């Protein structure tokens, strides 16, 4: 990942414990990245029929050898994420596979795959589609069938204003899952008074009192 950094600011990477180490390339304050690659790719994106998907934008920084594909060795992420991306299992993720995986993750419907597939972790991907709905959730008595009574129970459960009608907003909340509450500090608010320890020095840094403009990069890859 290349982050353009003006000399007047500081970049701080925060490695989130629990899922091991941070994997970001070192980037000095006074370095200027070689913009030819990203700029050329942006130009190509403009000319392309479709803009680069968010998924490919995220992955392309891992393409260390610049061959336009991400190999398993280049990939810096969890195995379960790789398995979703590498559709044909050849150990290489192309842009097409990344785009397809990104669309699939947005629109993954309910009732397919194992029940655990629809779980949503902290900070998980949001998106449309029937992600929160599954056959198993509807089949209350687990007889392998969804009866009229079970459908009625589902509708009643999600009829939040109890008007016996399922509005589109109620349906979206039922099948897509509600957006997770985001308690992050908003723009303009005071930075939280927290501190973190430097990884290589016995120093505790108060992140609420930066001496210069500071970029906080939170990341955790297994």
């Amino acid at each position, binding site marked *: *990942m290349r*982050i*353009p950094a*003006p000399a*007047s*600011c*500081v*970049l*701080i*990477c*925060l*490695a*989130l*414990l*629990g899922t091991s180490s*941070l994997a*970001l390339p*070192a*980037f000095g*304050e006074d370095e200027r990245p070689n913009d030819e690659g990203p700029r050329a790719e942006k130009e190509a994106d403009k000319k392309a029929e479709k803009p680069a998907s*968010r*998924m490919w*934008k*995220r992955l392309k920084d891992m393409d260390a050898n610049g061959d336009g594909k991400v190999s398993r060795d280049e990939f810096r992420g969890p195995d379960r994420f790789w398995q979703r991306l590498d559709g044909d299992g050849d150990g290489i993720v192309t842009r097409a596979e990344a785009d397809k995986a990104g669309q699939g993750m947005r629109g993954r419907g309910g009732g397919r795959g194992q029940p655990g597939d629809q779980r949503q*972790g*902290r*900070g998980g*991907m*949001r998106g449309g589609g029937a992600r929160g709905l599954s056959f198993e959730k509807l089949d209350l008595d687990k007889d392998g069938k969804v009866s009229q009574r079970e459908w009625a129970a589902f509708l009643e459960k999600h009829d939040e204003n109890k008007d016996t009608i399922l509005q589109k907003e109620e349906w979206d909340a039922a099948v897509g899952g509600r957006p*997770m509450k*985001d*308690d*992050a*500090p*908003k*723009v*303009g*608010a*005071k*930075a*939280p008074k*927290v*501190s*973190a*320890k*430097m*990884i290589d020095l016995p120093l505790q*840094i108060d*992140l*609420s*009192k*930066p001496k*210069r*403009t500071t*970029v*906080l*990069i*939170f*990341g*955790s890859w297994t």
Partner: protein
Amino acid sequence: MPVLVDDMQDSVAKAYNAMPDRLFVVKSDGTIGYRGDRGPRGFDVDAMARALGEIVASDKGAAGKKASASKAPKGD
């Protein structure tokens, strides 16, 4: 690039609601200058870079005005 480590209670990550990955810019006055969406899909380096450029430009402008004001001759 300095690397910091959160504590075992995820204090910083919780304060910033930053799991699994996220970008913020904290301005020199201690306020939030940019708040990215939660990653991985919301992890947008380009958007952060644009915001950072605006913040730095604004800081430079403010610093320039301050310097000009301090050099201006004081009236009697």
